């Protein structure tokens, strides 16, 4: 299950890195991409709160990006 998930998520990466020239959109095709819900960090407040919970309860943290400042919580 995990192996398949890894594949599903890495295929776009591989395509992205090797086939960059054919990927992407023209500026006028960004109608959907411009929506808030298509942002990579669409709900930063939710992310910050969740990150704090999982940092406190699990051994892993971060890896997703900075932006609003790290958690730095203990």
């Amino acid at each position, binding site marked *: 299950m*995990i192996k398949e*998930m*890894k594949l*599903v*998520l*890495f295929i*776009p*990466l591989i*395509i*992205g*890195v090797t086939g*960059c020239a054919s*990927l*992407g*959109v*023209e*500026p*006028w*095709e*960004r*109608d*959907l*991409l*411009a*929506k*808030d*819900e*298509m*942002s*990579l*960090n*669409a*709900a*930063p*407040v*939710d992310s*910050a*709160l969740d990150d*704090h*919970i*999982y940092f406190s*309860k*699990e*051994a*892993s943290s*971060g*890896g*997703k*990006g*900075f*932006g*609003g*400042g*790290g958690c*730095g*919580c*203990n």
Partner: protein
Amino acid sequence: MVARGLAVVDVVVINTMKNKTEKTNIKAALTIATAALLGTSNFTKAETTSIANVEENAWEFDSAFLFYSEADRVSAGEAIFNATKTFTDEEVLNLKLTVDALTGASANGGVAQPNVQTFTRPSGSGQYTIAAGDTPLDDTFHDTRVQLNGQWTQPIAPNYTASGGVHISKEYDYLSLGVNGNLAFDFDRKNSTFSAGFSYFQDKFTPEGGIPKAFSSMLIGDSSLPNWDDEFAKTRIGSEDTKTTTDILLGFTQVINRRMITQFNYSYSMVDGYLTDPFKIISVVGGFNSIDAGVAQDYIYESRPDSRIKQSIYAQSLYHFDKSVLDISYRYMWDDWQITSHTIDSRFRIPLGDAFGRESYIQPHFRFYQQSAAEFYKPFLIDGAALPTYASADYRIGEMTTFTVGLKYGLLVNNGHDLSFRLEYYRQTPTDAGFDEPGVLKGVDLYPTIDAIIAQVTYSF
């Protein structure tokens, strides 16, 4: 419009329109078409007579309250107030205030026993008892924390965006100061973005009762006796300690097509300093062949290495179907404590139209997490056996699987402000990493499951 994340999209948010019977947002569609034609990303507003267009330079606020509660254990409340201001030339200032309060009981690292156990509070003054068969929980944890973040983002050259920020966090016994910086480079019509960032934190810890000596025995007895303070002081090596955290993050974002965008990150993190938890102990129990097999003989303070190097790779995809949006990500983490973990996080946003509230939506959420134990993780130690260099019984660095299921519901209220509610169920299941249980330990639950509820309300205006 606010620049979110690492890639800045230089168009205005619109509602999609195709059907003649729907109210079409021609003005917005034309704005995008005009931008494409003229190649401009800076929009002036048309201002006539005395009507001032106040949309630009306005503040956007988010306020949220979260409640977290584990059954019979810790409860926490956290409130965030976030303010963002976008200036005319795509400069963004972000200020955030976070306040959280913790109450309830946390596991102290000891194992359950078929008899009553007594422990000393971290401060050294006072004891607490645990019923037979119960996992030892220390309820002296209640603390309030205040955190302030400031972040400034601005373009520094065509296609280059820089961001820098500061962080300060203070609670009764902990102070954390941090800075971060980030540079993003867009290319190929802003379809691809490379970014590199770093962050540096300096923390100081002044735990109640001071820093315990590694592997020293927890003093149990009567804290009102005259020589108690001296004896307690013998188990301490100082009143405070520090740690520094340095993170480097490299990211690559790629627009695949009109409906899909992906991100790939690599991160490297170095933590140096005091990484031990001064409030946690390890039960030392009688060995397999002793009369007291599995019975706690002593409680000693844990000890962790003074450095930790973590690395992770992260991949995320967002896909816009006809109306709904799927957000799915995977992270793999590995470190020099021999912990490895997998995290799969997925959200599916389903718009409900105006049926259940103006522009309402629901968003189911599922998260799966699995980690392997740190190499010095020991749920208990055997009396008489040689002490390892480092040991900790903290289940949070042991072998564990967790999952979260939740649902978020949102809608627009008042003048188009966002209101949303989120309710989630979080289950942590520590598992046996291959430790044989001597004697009486076979009859107790060494790896209790922890259930928690997460509830959040957010209002943006």
